[in-house]
């Protein structure tokens, strides 16, 4: 019973780190994978989600509803951002990077000016579950389950729905997609909106674990970008999954022994080494394996 509990505890550690990386990166992945835009305001969108959650929670809204509210609010904001600014930078990768960075400055500084240096914290919801000598937070168990659920939902969205089909077509060849009647403008707006909403949702989910301040997005930016870079753009969903797993395998033991910061440094070093060996990211390697299975002729 003891070793079983220890085993579960170890898996739990890996899973929480993996879920953290995955959820931090989710919004970024959707936008990068579908539109080839790197959204440097990602951290600030997460911040907006956390702010929405905090404001709503302290008005008595139950936590799960706060998270959904955050998804909607930030998603709407994302749609507005796309319509006004981001759409002018399609095809201009580096330009999009720079302009979203400008937006992130405005958002974080604006939050500081409007709301002050801190927003009231949200206590971690749910209690804990015991197993042997270990106790596991119900909150984190839910977050882990949610991260898997979200990835599965995203996968279905893009591979099993008409919207997903149209989005993939628009991504591969926008002109051709338009010629076939796909409303690419709407697809881009919805995709950016979805990515923003997911960032807001993740921000709300993580709100109970961090102090809610204007620059809180920063702590997610580094892990999120590392996850995306290692995952690669070939197939962002498998890439994100594979990347979270791999990086969690690096971060968990190192973070456990040397502390959280060294864990994140280890992530960067791992990312540098991984991209040296697999420049197109993990998803490209996975894709090659899958293709090898499907060989014909």
């Amino acid at each position: 019973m003891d070793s079983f509990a220890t085993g579960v505890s170890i898996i739990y550690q890996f899973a929480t780190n993996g879920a953290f990386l995955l959820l931090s990166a989710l919004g970024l992945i959707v936008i990068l994978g579908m539109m080839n835009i790197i959204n440097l305001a990602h951290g600030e969108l997460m911040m907006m989600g956390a702010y929405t959650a905090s404001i709503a929670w302290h008005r008595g809204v139950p936590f799960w509803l706060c998270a959904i509210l955050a998804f909607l609010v930030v998603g709407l904001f994302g749609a507005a951002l796309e319509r006004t600014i981001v759409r002018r930078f399609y095809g201009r990768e580096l330009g999009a990077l720079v302009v979203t960075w400008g937006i992130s400055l405005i958002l974080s500084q604006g939050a500081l000016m409007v709301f002050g240096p801190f927003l009231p914290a949200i206590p971690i919801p749910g209690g804990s579950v015991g197993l042997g000598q270990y106790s596991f937070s119900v909150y984190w168990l839910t977050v882990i389950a949610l991260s898997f659920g979200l990835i599965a939902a995203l996968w279905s969205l893009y591979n099993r729905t008409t919207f997903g089909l149209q989005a993939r077509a628009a991504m591969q060849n926008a002109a051709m997609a338009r010629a076939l009647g796909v409303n690419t403008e709407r697809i881009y707006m919805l995709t950016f909106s979805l990515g923003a909403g997911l960032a807001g949702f993740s921000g709300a989910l993580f709100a109970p674990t961090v102090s809610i301040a204007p620059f809180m997005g920063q702590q997610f930016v580094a892990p999120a970008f590392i996850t995306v870079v290692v995952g690669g753009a070939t197939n962002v969903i498998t890439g994100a999954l594979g990347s979270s797993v791999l990086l969690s395998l690096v971060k968990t033991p190192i973070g456990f022994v040397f502390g959280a910061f060294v864990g994140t440094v280890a992530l960067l070093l791992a990312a540098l080494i991984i991209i040296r060996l697999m420049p197109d990211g993990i998803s490209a390697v996975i894709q090659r394996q899958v293709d090898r299975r499907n060989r014909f002729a």
Partner: protein
Amino acid sequence: MSEPILRTEELAKRFDGVVATNDVSINVPRGELRCIIGPNGAGKSTLFSLLCGIYRPDAGRVFLKGEDVTRQPAFRRVRRGLGLTFQTNRAFHRLTVRQNLHAVLQIAREDRPPDAEERYRFALERFALDPDSEMPAKELPHHQLQWLEIAMVLAAGPDVVLLDEPTAGMSIDETLQTGAVLKHLNARGLTIVVVEHDVAFVRDVAQRVTVVHQGRVFAEGTVDEITAHADVRRIYLGQA
């Protein structure tokens, strides 16, 4: 020297489940003007990418002037005497003609062929390109833009050049002009391998033709042998 200037052994490459190149072994003797033809999607451009090092093969080897260059990055092969133009024109469109040509003249190759300078000057003159022109390259007419890329490659003084559909989009006269320049360059010692679709062009310039189909070498021979080949006609008409 009996060693071919360019040789491959059982070259193979696949992408995402598609076999682009399959067991390709070709031999290009020094001084030849070879045309590579084949239906679209046959793997001709992939073959060029493998030859110059943009892609690493999954299997097989590439030999340049007798040396195994399979593991060498692209720039090292260029320094050993290889040149390549791309299917979609890749001269520096935003830069001026002068900048395009001067970007190249800096490479010092130890074994630059003695005729290289003369070949380059000949091409400039026959292509009507002014190496000091400040005109942005993108304002050149299409055929001259193609010629500009060829001239850039010649400026480096290669021993063998790979040209990927150089006459695409050209008129009949421009195609003839291109063919004439290539034949002259070849007579001056430059080995040329051209991927082309234009039958008249191939007839005009080719000494030998390699037919590629579905990633494999389908047939090889002189122009007459190939045009008489019944199977070649069939693959072009989609019957094989």
